[in-house]
């Protein structure tokens, strides 16, 4: 048997001192303590699956962001910043902020007043059981697989950075997550995500502060990057006129229409992993404010993700290489840039906090996946398709057991990935297949009353099949990328953007055509589900500075200014 490339690793990056170990152990003790403390407040379905729908805007908003701020995200995009420069920031700004504001102001009122438990639950109300079944089964399946992939990635990082045994990392982290989510349900997951959010910032913010000090400020950093890489590594938009003018091999059409208009909208508005946090808000104003608060913080995440990658380009003495090269040569890969920067600046204590930030990131992502899986399995698969006559207590017990089983499936997936590393690429690609078409189905359902059940079902199915087909086509014949991305110069990331754009359009066209050929629902049936037929509840008579629209405007202005400044 050959050794998987994942196990050919360089010597550990850092050595922990006693105080570092104490900080890490304290973190595990605290998250478990929160789980045990909250176990008495998760006795009903509303408590366990929806956190009692009593979260404030701040708690829901930070949890919403934290569920997305996994360590794979932190390390992967820091590595992308080293590889592609500041272009990676598009995934945090235009690839997130407009979608989060759209969710807050346009879509959230419908999710919230329909009192659905999940996004598949909304599809059931709007399009009927078949659309929900397609969405729920695909989401549940992909969520536990993604959780397993993340778990393996974490264990691998801990092996590379700390020299920890891979089995130890997998089992300690998964058992911890299983305990605190099974005990306290979504409330426990949310509380820990907010805690993890603070730890991530406390542990990671020193790197850009000290890095900028060492580089001599932003202006000097730009000069050093231009000397060591290219001037295009520090421009956000000016190199996007053509595929060949930027290190990413993409153009502005892919970024604006593929990333911002489809992928980002799909992820932030229909991925139940993040939307579930907002559904737990205590009232309509909190539900609208939560994504806006999340967007406000999201704009500054590049400080702790992108900037360390850029600083790595300027100050690290060694040259980082792609993962495939690192696996053979034992050199450091792009994805190691964040731990390398951590080791560069952080001594005893701070190093423990930085490692805790990475572990917290992994665990918040894993807990997010597991709690979303538990809800979708119980409410959208088990209850409608297997046992519709259970008591509330029965479904809560089902939720607790599903949490444990979901974690065990994730562990199984992690070991599967360990044996067949290429599965990781397939799983990540599979996840992207569902996002764009699902957004097409949900947005048409909310904004167009003529959309029918059969239209929604066939649109979702055809959009997903078209996405899979394009991916398989390029996999079988890489030169086909020139047709999918409309250019022979397009690179891998451009494929994702254009694939999403086309599958969204297929979904919309099929939904419209089938809807026009089938019988629509009456207006009375669509009340509470479709724009124009639903009295959107007011946030009440409050001062302008407390209104969601005001803060959305503030975030929008800052977003615009940042894009101009880094043009």
């Amino acid at each position, binding site marked *: 048997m050959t050794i998987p490339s994942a196990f050919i690793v360089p010597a550990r990056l850092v050595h922990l001192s006693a105080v570092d170990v104490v900080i890490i152990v*304290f973190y595990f003790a605290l998250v478990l303590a929160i789980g045990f403390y909250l176990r008495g407040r998760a006795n009903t379905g509303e408590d366990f699956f929806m956190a009692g729908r009593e979260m404030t805007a*701040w708690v829901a908003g930070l949890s919403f962001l934290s569920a997305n701020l996994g360590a794979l995200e932190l390390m992967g995009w820091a590595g992308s910043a080293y590889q592609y420069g500041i272009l990676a920031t598009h995934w945090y700004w235009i690839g997130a902020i407009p979608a989060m504001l759209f969710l807050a102001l346009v879509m959230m009122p419908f999710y919230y007043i329909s009192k659905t438990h999940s996004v598949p639950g909304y599809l059931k109300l709007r399009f009927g059981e078949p659309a929900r079944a397609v969405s729920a089964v695909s989401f549940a399946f992909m969520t536990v697989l993604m959780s397993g992939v993340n778990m393996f990635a974490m264990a691998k990082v801990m092996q590379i950075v700390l020299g920890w045994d891979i089995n130890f990392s997998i089992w300690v982290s998964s058992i911890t997550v299983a305990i605190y989510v099974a005990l306290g349900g979504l409330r426990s997951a949310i509380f820990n995500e907010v805690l993890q959010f*603070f730890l991530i910032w406390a542990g990671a913010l020193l790197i850009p502060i000290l890095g900028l000090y*060492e580089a001599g400020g932003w202006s000097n950093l730009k000069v050093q990057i231009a000397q060591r890489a290219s001037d295009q590594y520090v421009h956000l938009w000016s190199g996007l006129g053509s595929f060949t003018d930027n290190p990413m091999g993409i153009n502005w059409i892919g970024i604006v229409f593929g990333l911002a208009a489809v992928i980002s909208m799909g992820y932030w508005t229909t991925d139940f992993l993040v939307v579930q946090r907002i559904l737990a808000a205590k009232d309509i104003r909190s539900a609208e404010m939560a994504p806006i608060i999340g967007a406000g913080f999201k704009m500054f995440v590049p400080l702790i993700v992108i900037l360390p990658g850029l600083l790595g380009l300027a100050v690290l003495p060694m040259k980082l290489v792609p993962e495939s090269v690192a696996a053979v040569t034992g050199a450091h890969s792009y994805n190691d840039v964040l731990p390398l920067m951590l080791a560069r600046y952080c*001594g005893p204590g701070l190093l423990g906090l930085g490692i805790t930030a990475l572990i917290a990131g992994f665990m918040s992502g894993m807990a997010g996946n597991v709690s979303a899986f538990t809800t979708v399995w119980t409410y959208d698969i088990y209850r409608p398709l297997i046992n519709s006559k259970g008591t509330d207590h029965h479904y809560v017990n089902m939720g607790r057991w599903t949490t444990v089983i979901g974690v065990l499936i994730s562990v199984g997936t992690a070991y599967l990935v360990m044996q067949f590393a290429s599965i990781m690429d397939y799983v990540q690609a599979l996840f992207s297949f569902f996002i764009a078409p699902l957004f097409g189905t949900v947005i048409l359902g909310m904004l167009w009353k003529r959309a029918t059940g059969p239209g929604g079902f066939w649109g979702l199915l055809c959009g997903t099949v078209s996405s899979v087909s394009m991916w398989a086509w390029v996999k079988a014949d890489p030169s086909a990328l020139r047709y999918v991305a409309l250019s022979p110069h397009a690179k891998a990331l451009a494929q994702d953007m254009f694939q999403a754009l086309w599958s969204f359009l297929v979904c919309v066209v099929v939904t419209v055509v089938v809807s026009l050929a089938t019988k629509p629902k009456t207006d009375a049936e669509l009340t509470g589900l479709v724009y124009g037929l639903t009295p959107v509840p007011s946030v009440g008579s409050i001062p302008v500075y407390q209104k969601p629209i005001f803060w959305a405007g503030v975030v929008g202005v800052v977003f615009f200014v940042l894009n101009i400044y880094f043009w």
Partner: protein
Amino acid sequence: MVSIWFFIGLSLLVNGVLIFGAGLYELWNPPAHPTVELFNLHASVWWGALMTVIGAWYCYHFKPGQKKAG
């Protein structure tokens, strides 16, 4: 119910004290060959102190028994 903000304060406070203590130890017993860049800035001392102050404020402001639940 204990506020989430209290747990966050507790985490910042305990970690802040540990980091501040480790920083002071290194300040008074500097290693012959520091393993980190910019050791002279003693980031552990001021970052640990900052975390301690913020954590203490959160713990006090959201201590159990008050009405502000998160």
